[in-house]
């Protein structure tokens, strides 16, 4: 058993859900055009030396991918609410294969988000070297690992009626404190808090596209700790989660 069919159907289901597609992919795109299009000729946003379309593209890529990956939690909570999780436990599907499929599906949604926002950025005049595109994309994909684990964790902890506000709030808070919407000052308490969050490093990953240097040792360490903690907790939540919801 390769679980290929299982994964294929998970992907199919996810992309067939029209509301999910509209909000997960449409929302960042609309937001991007709303913010960046009016300023498309601004080449030096707030004396950063970065053009507005590029600056908002990398910000929204960080936000949009985080949102897409975390929303795996909402789908898990919805499946649990109809008893699907219990049903799956009664099949030979292993926990490992289950997690792998959930993470893979989350990544597929993030990848579509990236492609759409890059295309939108290019449409508004963003030009980067192929090396910059690739380095930025690879580091973003790595930076999404802790979010994938967090999404699965929240999906197994929350119920379908609480997962919406919980995920929305978490995403907003992580985005705000991580510097998605405005740059975090480079010193002080705010900076210290931001540096301990995975969203800060995801934003740094996206800012490879604006000439940023990516992650130093601290960045890798923070991401590794978040990934490890969320994975351990997600496994535990999954194991416990055999009751009727």
């Amino acid at each position, binding site marked *: *058993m390769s*679980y*290929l*069919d*299982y994964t294929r*159907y998970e992907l*199919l*289901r*996810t992309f*067939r*859900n029209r509301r999910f597609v509209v909000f997960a992919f449409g929302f960042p795109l609309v937001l991007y055009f709303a913010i960046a299009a009016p300023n498309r000729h601004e080449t030096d946003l707030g004396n950063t030396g970065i053009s507005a379309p590029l600056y908002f593209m990398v910000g929204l890529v960080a936000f949009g991918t985080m949102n897409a990956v975390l929303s795996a939690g909402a789908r898990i909570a919805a*499946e649990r609410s*109809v*008893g*699907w999780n*219990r*049903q799956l*436990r*009664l*099949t*030979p*599907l*292993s926990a490992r294969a289950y997690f792998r499929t959930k993470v893979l599906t989350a990544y597929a949604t993030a990848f579509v988000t990236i492609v759409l926002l890059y295309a939108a950025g290019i449409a508004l005049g963003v030009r980067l070297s192929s090396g910059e595109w690739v380095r930025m994309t690879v580091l973003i994909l790595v930076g999404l690992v802790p979010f994938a684990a967090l999404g699965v964790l929240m999906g197994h902890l929350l119920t379908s009626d609480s997962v919406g506000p919980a995920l929305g709030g978490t995403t907003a808070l992580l985005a705000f404190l991580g510097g998605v919407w405005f740059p975090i000052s480079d010193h002080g308490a705010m900076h210290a808090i931001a540096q301990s969050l995975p969203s800060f490093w995801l934003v740094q990953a996206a800012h490879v596209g604006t000439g940023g240097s990516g992650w130093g040792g601290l960045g890798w360490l923070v991401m590794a700790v978040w990934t490890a903690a969320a994975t351990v907790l997600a496994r535990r939540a999954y194991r416990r989660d*055999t*009751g*009727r919801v």
Partner: protein
Amino acid sequence: MTDASIDLQGLTKSFRGPHGVVRAVREVDLTVGPGETVALLGPNGAGKSTTIDMLLGLLEPDEGRATLFGKPPREAVAAGRTGVMLQTGSLIRDLSVRELLDMVASLYPVPLPVAEALVLTGIEEIADRRTQKLSGGETQRVRFAMALVTNPDLLVLDEPTVAMDVEGRRAFWTTMRELASRGKTVLFATHYLEEADAYADRVVLMAHGNVVADGAPTEIKAMVGARRIRATLPGPAVGDLAQLEGVTRAERHGETVVLACADSDRAIRALLARYPAARDIEIAGAALEEAFLELTGAEDAKEAA
């Protein structure tokens, strides 16, 4: 010797409820051999679903153990030997019925062809419909098809017909007969005596978390299927009424008497011969709940004391 399909030894489970600890399942022993069709019969709250959750490994017993085919439940499940239809649960959305069955089948080592599962459960017409567009009865049939497509050695069904319409029920039991004839072991929970009687080789009666009887359907029916006669009849003492032929027990509530009968045909003749004044006569099969109360009443009284 082949291992029993199901072997439960001293299975016990309690839950903390709002009114203290509820002992949902109490030292249940049960062995089901290959090819048997067994009904787990009992009223709501008898512990049937909790027993099933434990035998499938969804719930850890407080005491005792469950094995399927001589292995811990999770191993038997992982080996794809069980097909299950739980009491509660619905379907995930955004797949067609055919796709959903194909997805489930892909997880098993030797599944039935999806087309065969569709035919067996009579859902070919809705095979291409999305799962979120199905009616309640159709959803139940698809859930049944999901249990079948796994082509299991052991089929476990928890109250499978509860949400089905009459036609669905009939189709369901026809399919079950077909499966039993293929040598599958089947365990189904129900609170309908008629279903247990008509479709099982063996009935295990549960009440208050205990197995209170275990035998052929005819034996169980004789135990719990007793009829009762209710009549308006002032006068005769309860002791005299209980002496009537075919009557096992008599009660009086004001002018009304209730006679529990081993043989209601003889009892009604005896009653009218002896007390022609009896009127407003009703003869009814005892509700399962009442029959259980009778079977387990003594024990509960002991426990309360």
